[in-house]
């Protein structure tokens, strides 16, 4: 981890309230793992004051480039989305603990709600590089906001879309879709699947490992499904953050603790990825 400045290498792509930003930042490109984030200085003045934690969406190790995908949601991200090619941005990172790579050969899936796809796409790229293919459940309010689906298909994964308004894929939440799918018996139908030239494991239930990121309500539902079905999972957690270095104790996540019942752990250094069974949802 370090503090560096990265130059924007191409024009930001904006789709449906999201923005995709590519920066030249060799050290970050070489040292990042899926699930890690950068603490980004969005403006140059005292308002907005704090950095913004933004997931690493993809890296190109050869070119030394990194891509961030973020939702334009407030003052900081609005300023960031206006930055032009060539402008330099102060970055801290890569920060935090990322996802662990699957250990066995069982089915793998990811569940992404909205902008939750940002870190999971990086994970899917890494899985694909290791010839591991997953079922990718993507949820969004509308079909237009369903981002990254084509890129994920190109990586060899199988995409299962869900939209709140039913304009694309399953009409309902991504957690509901995942729940239905994960109940399909081992020899049942379903996507993911084994394709010629694609070694296992397929993204078919029973799942050995589930990775999720999205709004808290969705993560809570996914964790409940995992707990009932006794499936291992990891979730990337989001919380309002201060320093990003583990010092200020702002961004804590309530987690189980055998001795004390619960313990607040820091999303920035102990997370943002936590084992699904460790998070306590109040």
């Amino acid at each position, binding site marked *: 981890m370090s503090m560096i400045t990265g130059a924007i290498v191409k024009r930001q792509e904006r789709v449906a309230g999201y923005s995709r930003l590519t920066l030249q930042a060799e050290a970050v490109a070489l040292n990042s793992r899926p699930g890690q984030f950068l603490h980004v200085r969005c403006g140059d003045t*005292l308002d907005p004051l704090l950095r913004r934690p933004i997931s690493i969406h993809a890296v190109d190790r050869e070119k030394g480039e990194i891509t961030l995908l973020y939702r334009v949601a407030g003052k900081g991200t609005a300023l960031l989305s206006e930055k032009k090619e060539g402008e330099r941005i102060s970055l801290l990172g890569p920060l935090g603990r990322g996802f662990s790579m699957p250990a066995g050969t069982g089915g793998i899936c990811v569940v992404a709600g909205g902008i939750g796809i940002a870190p999971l796409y990086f994970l899917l790229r890494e899985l694909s590089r290791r010839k591991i293919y997953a079922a990718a459940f993507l949820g969004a309010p509308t079909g237009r906001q369903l981002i990254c689906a084509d890129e994920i298909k190109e990586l060899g994964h199988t995409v299962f879309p869900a939209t709140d308004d039913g304009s694309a894929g399953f009409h309902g939440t991504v957690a509901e879709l995942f729940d239905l799918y994960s109940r399909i018996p081992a020899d049942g139908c379903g996507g993911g699947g084994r394709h010629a030239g694609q070694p296992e494991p397929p993204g078919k239930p029973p799942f050995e490992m589930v990775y999720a990121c999205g709004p808290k309500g969705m993560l809570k539902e996914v964790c409940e499904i995992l707990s009932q079905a006794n499936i291992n999972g990891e979730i990337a957690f989001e919380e309002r953050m201060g320093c990003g270095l583990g010092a200020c104790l*702002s961004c*804590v996540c*309530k987690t189980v603790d055998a001795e004390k019942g619960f313990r607040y752990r820091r999303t920035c250094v102990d997370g943002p990825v936590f084992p699904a069974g460790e998070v306590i949802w109040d």
Partner: protein
Amino acid sequence: MKCGQEPNLAVNVGGIRMKNPVTTASGTFGFGREYSSYLDLNRLGAVTVKGITLEPRAGNPVPRIVETPAGVLNSIGLQNPGVDRFLEEALPFLAAYNLPVIVNIAGDSVKDYAGLAARLDRAAGVAGLEVNVSCPNVKKGGMLFGCDPAATAEVTRAVKSSTDKPVIVKLSPNVTSITAVAEAAARAGADALSMINTLLGMAIDVRSRRPVLGNVMGGLSGPAVKPVAVRAVWQVYREVPLPIIGMGGITTAEDAVEFILAGAAAVAVGTASFINPPVAVEVLEGIEKYLCENGIGDVNELVGAAHRY
């Protein structure tokens, strides 16, 4: 402009000898280790660590932080591992550095503060104690010690009688007369004062129509509070003959110099470390440059200089 002779930066804050006047504000710098890969801790005049209580504290529910214009509201709830684990796990890391460690202490009762002071009095590697009096006095219906001159004096006396180490009392700005509280701390034996702690504030989410912070109210810090802090240092410097560590929104060397001119013998960098982790060293270098450019041979000459205009 190049300096002919390097200015003296060393200061003595109530018996704590610092090689320069820059320290860190408690709660913004963890136990130092968190920042150790972003700056050379040895460059600092002192490190002031996160507030410690006798027993471990879990802290407040989230959200614990919210940004406001040029500021930050926080309500962490003193999450800390307790004094024993602090001494076992956090302090040894800092002992490897050549810098005074100031330990911020907090409690629910006068007895808590005295107990902490006694426990830390025996700890090698602790240069001084900073007493956070902005805590509710559980026995007196939750009124903050620091809002009452008599309660501040009582805590100060209890700490002083439990340790031989220098005692700094950290003053709250959420009072009618900060000078009255400062005088009470001075009469009770404080060796130095630090000011200001955060300003009580809150923010409401207009979409959910609920307070943003889990604990409803929190402490405001950052550049937004700087004029309030400079004013507080100015007022107390005129009335109370104790060295002051000035803090509240310092992000640049100019901000630090402003505090020194108002009467601060040393300064602490707080919230700015969140945005720019090596900022404390940048502030130090800027102070040195300011002294050089203005032909001032000793930083101590600058303390309170604005009162002599």
